[in-house]
């Protein structure tokens, strides 16, 4: 099986280790990974801030970059949700503004081929035990766009539960937003930080060493708060846990 990795701009620039983990994990599972060079940002920050027209070139670019791939896999629930939920809306609005069906067609072609990583593992590859080893106590924060937008359900938790050595502890109030929310984090910094701090208090209360998530943007916000507070808790993307094995532990 051949897939295209949509690494996302945040992971590309700031969390390359997540992208590397996705590549190693998929290759270990026998999947051939391509990295189409034309990819960039999905346009979510622009779109969610109210700049739909600035988003449109990125819709075109993303659709073109992945045109030839049957499976597009991304380690971000919110970028997957952007493509699946909002690209069609952007297309419809452009049509209403009398600018033709080009964006609608781009969205229609791309959206059904896009999979968030845990969806791809569980639904397409049909695996929950990916042969990972991670001897730590972990708690999982389901990011909102994965949880409510994509309906990832318990896929991430099933994958984590199958990791050898991993002790999965429940995060109280797991379904509550961490307070990142894209530009919300800077437009409403006080509420954003208050939400993040409450999330971290819950996470710390579980006794976990690692707070795991499926979206590096949420984790950047939480990690930023943790490091400012000098907390021993650390954040990790789920892909990095799933990529770790006894032979190649996470460093």
């Amino acid at each position: 099986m051949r897939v295209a990795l949509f690494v996302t701009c945040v992971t590309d620039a700031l969390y390359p280790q997540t992208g590397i983990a996705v590549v190693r994990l998929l290759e270990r599972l026998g999947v051939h990974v391509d990295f189409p060079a034309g990819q960039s940002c999905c346009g979510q920050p622009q779109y969610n801030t109210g700049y739909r027209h600035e988003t449109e070139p990125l819709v075109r670019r993303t659709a073109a970059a992945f045109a030839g791939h049957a499976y597009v896999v991304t380690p971000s629930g919110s970028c997957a949700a952007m493509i699946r939920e909002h690209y069609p809306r952007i297309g419809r609005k452009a049509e209403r503004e009398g600018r033709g069906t080009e964006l609608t067609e781009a969205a229609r072609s791309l959206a059904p081929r896009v999979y968030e990583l845990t969806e791809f593992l569980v639904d397409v590859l049909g695996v929950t035990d990916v042969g990972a080893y991670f001897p730590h106590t972990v708690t999982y924060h389901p990011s909102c766009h994965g949880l409510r937008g994509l309906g990832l359900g318990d896929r991430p938790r099933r994958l984590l539960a199958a990791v050898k050595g991993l002790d999965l502890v429940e995060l109280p109030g797991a379904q509550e937003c961490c307070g990142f929310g894209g530009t919300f984090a800077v437009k409403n910094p006080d509420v954003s930080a208050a939400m993040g701090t409450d999330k971290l208090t819950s996470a710390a209360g579980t006794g976990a060493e690692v707070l795991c998530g499926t979206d590096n943007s949420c984790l950047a916000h939480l990690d930023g708060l943790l490091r400012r507070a000098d907390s021993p808790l650390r954040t990790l993307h789920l892909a990095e846990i799933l990529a770790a094995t006894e032979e190649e532990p996470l460093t």
Partner: protein
Amino acid sequence: MTRTDLGMPAFPDAAREAVRDGVLRANLRHATHTIRDKRARAVAELEDWDRLRAAGKAVKDHTLRHLDRYLLQLEAAVTAAGGTVHWAVDADEANRIVTELVRATGEREVVKVKSMATQEIGLNEALEAAGITAYETDLAELIVQLGHDRPSHILVPAIHRNRAEIRDIFRAEMGRWGRPAPDPLGDDPRELAEAARLHLREKFLRAKVAVCGANFMVAETGTMVVFESEGNGRMCLTLPETLISVVGIEKVVPTFRDLEIFLQTLPRSSTAERMNPYTTMWTGLGPSRGADGDGPSAFHLVLLDNGRTDTLADETGRQALRCIRCSACLNVCPVYERAGGHAYGSVYPGPIGAVLSPQLRGTDSEIDASLPYASTLCGACYDVCPVAIDIPEILVHLRERVAQGGPVTRHGIRVRIRPAHGHTAERAAMRAARLLLDRPGALRAGERLLARARRLAPRRLPGPGAAWTDTRDLPSVPAEPFRDWWTRERGTPQ
């Protein structure tokens, strides 16, 4: 909208104060979590919840598509049953109509059932200017009125107050409005409810005029429906001689049968009960046309537009008019929980307020332009909405209106508005970002530059970036971006 909250600070500034108020944070957290868990249990009892939700949405959408027809049908039915129907384009007109109706009775005071529509138009203030005192009779509204306060929640306007604060308000203020609070007065909710009972009973027994809203109006029969819990509604709806209902035009439903949906979804979504203690349904003046002494002998219905038809004209935004004011979205909203209702600068706080106020009032004021951004788009509000309003979708749509401008309808006229003030720098940044992101070569160069300068990365950023670094560290910049790793390991990408 005449209510003068429009000098309000923008949401982020108001929210900052709330976040720092420890008592408020604790009050809100306790209250919202209590009701949130109860709601989830009440909803889980109904295996057909999703179907009820879809049906409720469909009833409202159907009604909105044929709103002119149903309003005319309603008017005919109410009139045939002995009521009088008035139409008000805006708050001023509605206030004028009600004031004149009260004046015509010769009375100087009215009792009120909690009503969002009358708060929206600032009716109490308008009556006061005309020398008429309006007594709020819902317990929470009483707390707000006695405390010279503003409501902060749709269902529980005094949610920001705890029992000790309420006791202090009752002790200090009840005597000025009528019967003083019992002395001594403790802070047990039972004791506080008893104090409200004693204080308000004399007002109920002497009242000649009552003002209310309605949760639903049935076009087919002219039936008005008010859901409540305390019995203050029943007091106002049945004891006085004159009853005046001020109701938003979107509250009409086609048939009596349609109530079977909302009688199941509204109580479970709002107070998290299978059924609220009291629901009153009346049709005009009843079978005897007011002659049997059961209920008022005069009934007036004031149908209120006040921005609703403008909202209806917006294809994405109009779904906000499905709202049945249950407040489930407030109770699950993590932003509301921290910012509190006052930060929204409107009688409609929380997620629904963030999409309703900027549509009813427009996005000209600072507060209204900031409301669409008062959300992380986490989607919890959409999940619990019993009429499936996609609040995040409307928020993004309104952000576009604020950031880019575009076509809107104002007072029935289609106009094109310019972007709101203060978005020029952001717009430039978004454009620059897009230009960079749309050129992978430039993006890659930028990433490399960032990587090379990573040791110089400051702990705190100046300007708008400070909003991040005031409380959070920046992510450390890696030695190389993913793209470079890929090229190094796998060769040039295709």
